[in-house]
């Protein structure tokens, strides 16, 4: 009982603090502290409620137990991370995004192709592509190659649609200026088209980070060697050791957030001129 009271009191106190901070002076520190406090509060609430109501760890382990499990099985987690993230997701992400990028540049010159591919691309981007996973596992085998293939297909169309949209972001005055300079096609592509497309390209790249991780993990449900995050999650769920599953989810969440964060940082450096980056 004392755990529940503690958790609720902690929650109320932190919320009051957050409200005070949010309506107070807006410094950089406050902008970081408020969401962090909220996150910590959620963890404390989780721990308190699980302990207070003595929820079975088979249903929902408390964060402390997950942390302990995380620390004690680092080698396994690292092996799974390499198999799923580095080999599967990252390879597929790089291949898929570059293929989509090159395709977009190729079809950008033809209005006909663009008008044909864009509606189809938009349509395919809304489809449950993850369903292709069993087929690709059948084609490319159980190892990471099939996972990379799933990721390639998953990221291709969102990236294509975004890049094509970006390449048409330059306006008529700018194109006219390039032609008065007598710029060749490649010159105006590299000096005008691509820089103008960068905000869209990075939007696509950021969307694809999550898709890549999801694709690589879910593809492992359809068959994988005895390592990998998806494999571990599905087998440990079967053995009801949920603390390991949560540790694996923590790795996935950290990897996903870091991947997204890196892309956002690169975006900030590349598109420093864009209004959304200035303030």
């Amino acid at each position, binding site marked *: 009982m004392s755990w529940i009271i503690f958790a609720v009191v902690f929650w109320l106190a932190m919320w009051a603090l957050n409200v005070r901070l949010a309506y107070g002076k807006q410094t950089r520190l406050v902008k970081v502290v408020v969401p962090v*406090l909220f996150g910590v509060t959620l963890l404390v609430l989780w721990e308190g409620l699980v302990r207070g109501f003595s929820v079975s760890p088979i249903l929902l382990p408390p964060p402390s137990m997950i942390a302990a499990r995380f620390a004690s099985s680092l080698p396994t987690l690292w092996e799974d991370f390499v198999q799923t993230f580095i080999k599967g997701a990252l390879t597929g992400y790089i291949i898929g995004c570059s293929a989509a990028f090159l395709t977009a540049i190729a079809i950008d010159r033809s209005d006909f192709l663009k008008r044909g591919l864009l509606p189809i691309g938009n349509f395919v981007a*809304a489809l449950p592509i993850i369903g292709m996973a069993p087929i690709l596992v059948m084609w490319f085998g159980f190892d990471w190659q099939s996972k990379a293939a799933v990721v390639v297909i998953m990221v291709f169309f969102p990236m294509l649609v975004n890049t094509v949209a970006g390449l048409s972001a330059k306006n008529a005055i700018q194109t006219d200026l390039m032609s008065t300079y007598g710029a060749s096609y490649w010159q105006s592509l590299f000096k005008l088209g691509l820089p103008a497309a960068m905000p869209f390209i990075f939007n696509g790249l950021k969307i694809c980070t999550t898709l890549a991780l999801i694709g690589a993990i879910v593809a492992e449900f359809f068959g994988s060697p005895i390592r990998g995050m998806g494999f571990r999650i599905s087998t440990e769920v079967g053995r009801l050791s949920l603390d390991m599953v949560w540790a694996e989810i923590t790795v996935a969440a950290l990897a996903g957030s870091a991947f997204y964060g890196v892309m956002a940082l690169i975006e900030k450096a590349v598109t420093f001129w864009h209004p959304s980056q200035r303030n």
Partner: protein
Amino acid sequence: MTKLWHNAAPVLTILALLMALWYGAAVALNAAWAKDKAARADTLLTFSELVSDTMSQEKPLLPAPHQVVKEIYKTTVLKKVTSKRSLIWHGWITLSATLLGFAFGTTLGILLAVGIVYSRAMDMSVMPWVITSQTIPILAVAPMIIVVLNAVGVSGLLPKAIISMYLSFFPVVVGMVKGLRAPDQMQLDQMRTWNASKSTSFWKLRLPRSMPYLFASLKIGIAASLVGAIVGELPTGAVAGLGARLLAGSYYGQTIQIWSALICAAILAASLVAIIGMIEKVTLRKMGMLP
């Protein structure tokens, strides 16, 4: 008419190209098996025999489009709807989980968005976590949610709907926050000069103004819900639903079954998005936001 043709011609051309590519790939991928079979029977295949064999295998690596269409026809029109082999039955199970999850997700998304727009504290503390929540590959967590809820005694529709909800609430939150903040200062000032209360300016200004944003998000959300429902069906052990058809097909190497489930899912996704698009058009026209 010419305008329609102007829009449709490129799409149809690309579709025809894709179809040709599919047939070509089917021949190329299935040829090995056909040749293998012929070698064992000590016969030599002519080219036309080879092609026709690749199009009619029982478990091809890549089924030809007409095989998939035939399978879909067989499992939708020819089977009774209540039969466990009917794709309509499986599709309905997936669809009901999708719609329930979508309804939950949309409600949650709108409530969160209203909270975020009206409370600064909520904006600052919840918004970053809403964004982070999407970098967590929830689909990977799906089996756990299913199994755990099953252990508590909740099974069937609800666990799948929860996964759908998680995937569909995000676009709604982001879109609605943008939409509810869309009224500009002049419009807000106008409400103030009329001495409108907070709730009046919500119902008469912010909410109507956010409708275009809401519909754009709903289209993304429903597609995401469908993906969630399909993946949610995987760990239940291939009992029912389109996801179960995928899994069962992959266990037994029934490629035609996988492809027909996949195409059905695609048709379902496209029709759901189209329906929302239609509701959007009607609503916005009634509100006078469309010409």
